[in-house]
């Protein structure tokens, strides 16, 4: 009985660590680590933001509030490049995305340093990475309460449009 009890305790602890990480709600964000010598291992804030549902949800809200949508749409891009594909012009790690957001990039990405807090930049970066399915998929909610951007709209039924071109002797092509 006691060994079974111990096993279930261990299982519970494992669950706890998995569950707690995703479910943490820290409205102040994670402070910068004191010791920066371990940079090679990656910033410890990576997981604290992108595997935490609350931070991703905050990032999702800020993505709208800070007008990211205006240029990058809901990941498909527009004035700015798409964010939902695998391509990263300036690097796709959390630190790179945060740097892009805070410092801007020369071809038009404005710098948000001084306009948003560093914590918000991390939240945004986590959300941006989720657009291309980088973090765990069970962390972010399925959809926001906004217009669906996963379904194409086709209210007017599209008919096949016949090209009314007569047969030509030859089509010029360079």
């Amino acid at each position, binding site marked *: 009985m006691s060994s079974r009890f111990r096993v279930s305790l261990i299982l519970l602890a494992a669950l706890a660590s998995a569950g707690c990480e995703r479910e943490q709600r820290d409205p102040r964000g994670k402070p910068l680590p004191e010791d920066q010598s371990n940079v090679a291992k990656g910033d410890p804030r990576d997981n604290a933001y992108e595997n935490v549902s609350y931070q991703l949800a905050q990032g999702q809200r800020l993505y709208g509030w800070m007008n990211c949508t205006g240029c990058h749409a809901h*990941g498909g891009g527009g*004035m700015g490049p798409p964010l939902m594909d695998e391509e990263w012009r300036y690097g796709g790690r959390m630190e790179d995305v945060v740097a892009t957001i805070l410092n801007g990039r020369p071809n038009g990405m404005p710098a948000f340093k001084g306009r948003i807090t560093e914590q918000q930049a991390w939240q945004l970066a986590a959300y941006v990475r989720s657009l291309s399915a980088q973090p765990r998929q069970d962390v972010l909610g399925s959809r926001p309460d*906004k217009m669906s*951007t996963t379904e*194409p*709209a086709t209210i007017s039924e*599209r008919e096949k*449009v016949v090209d009314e071109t007569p047969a030509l002797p030859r089509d010029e092509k*360079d």
Partner: protein
Amino acid sequence: MKEGPRGARETAMFRAKLGKMFMRSALGQRLFAPIVLFALLLPAQLDAQRARPAAGAAPADDGQWTMPSKDFASTRYSALGQINRSNVRQLRPVFNFDTGNRRGHEAPPLVIGSTMYLVTPYPNSVIALDLAKPRPTVKWTFRPAQKRAAQGVACCDVVNRGAVYSGGRLFLNTLDGQAIAIDAASGRQIWRTQLGNINKGETITMAPLVAEGRVLVGNSGGEFGVRGWIAALDAGSGRVVWKAYSTGPDKDVLIGPGFRPFYPSDRGKDLGVATWPPEAWKIGGGTVWGWISYDPRTKTIFYGTGNPGPWNPAQRPGANKWTTGVFARDIRTGQARWFYQSSPHDLYDHDDINEQILLDMPVGGRMRGVLVRPGRNGYMYVIDRASGQVLSADAYGYINSARGVDLRTGQLIPVKEKEPKEGRVVRNICPAAPGAKDWNPSAFSPRTGLIYVPHINLCMDVGAIEANYIAGTPYVGADVKMYPGPGGNRGVFTAWDPVRRRATWELKEDLPLWSPALATGGDLVFYGTMDGWFKALDATTGKLLWRAKLDSGIIGQPISYRGPDGRQYVAVHSGVGGWAGAIVAGALDPRDPSGALGFVNAMRDLPGRTKAGGRLFVFALPR
């Protein structure tokens, strides 16, 4: 033009009778009939049944192409007739030139003498080609110094709509908000004036208009909460002579005692403030990024103002003067003469920046000096040039967001259910945000009296959300998905008879038409499609006579000119892009239907049908 309606009809009847009498007489039949017929019928057509370009605004064709709209009346009509309906099938490319740029090429080539000038999208290089050589070569290239960050605040691809030649100089605008004059011979910069501030989201994409020694320039950035303006620069020095804003107090808008709008709703003090919530006019848009026409007789410019910001209408209750309307201004002082607002309190991003073709034509039996403009909102407006009165407004595309235009008040009659609302997607709004027709201008042929309108047939779903203004970032407040309108075709090419107020013929195109039209004296119309077909139609019947597939989709402005060898040439840029082609030019992800402000949803097939490019193509008949 003081002929009354009865007078015109009687004159025409008299001439017709006279013609019949001559035809019946043996003498007439044998000797004089052809000559007399020609002499009698031509003026009859011009006077009674047909529109013609405004007197003085469209001088006789010299075979050159000095400004994007061809002339001040904006006809895009070349009188050259060497290429005509019978020989167009032999048209073939004579040379092409790679601009080295892969974004949307909306600019036309200019031809002055034996030199052709090209303007590329950002970085807006100007390339002079020597046409005198058998294989045209580059005479010089001008690369304006400009800020790279400007690319980030260009709403709809980093396009440029062309330069203007005047008095030995080329004038062009750069994306980062400069107006530049260069010496056409050497490519040397003469002056440059910084007009726009990209940190606020201001860019310039329009082609300037030069007249009376003034260079007219307006800003872009209606999706960034900028305040729209048009400025007149001294062509010699680049000094700003006047600057008229599209919102704000009358003194900023250059509204003075000479302002006589036709409709009472446009009269009143400081309407540019009073028709907005407090402070909203400062970030209210009304940019001037489209086409300017000029009537030299009255020294009046006509231009349209862009959409109010943000798109979400709930954030700007009121009529939002002076956005989405047409201004008539004195070119010398900038003082407004009249204004007409086609979409008060715009709901759908229906910028009113489309071309205005200045015509003299019979309206209700009387010749009137009018401007005709196919509006974004789907109505073909005929407006009196002198008074600003709307003489007619007829739908030329499918519209379900409005019931029509009340000609008594000039007001658009909106359909309440189609008004975008916060919290709920409004579906199936037609026409969509780019309107029934976007920037790409129509052409007018005095030979057929028809206006050739390349336009689009898209509807959309809009989910309005509260937009947040942060300087230098988009200020839109709407999620949009566009899709083909009724019929399933996304583009339409319409030949519109402005006198009879209806389409003479119409051609469905699968893809939206984003390229302007060109009409020629050979009774041909040219236009391009986004999958790269360059087409020539019979101007009277709309029959497709010739087409050629180019390496990339066409959104450029086709022109026609007489080369140094005396032959007629037709030239156009390929290079897909712009708002409609952003999915290719910007390599957008088709999985997100809201991409490019919702245009991606309608263009998901485009990447499979064309690729990015940027190349000038010149066609001619075989020697």
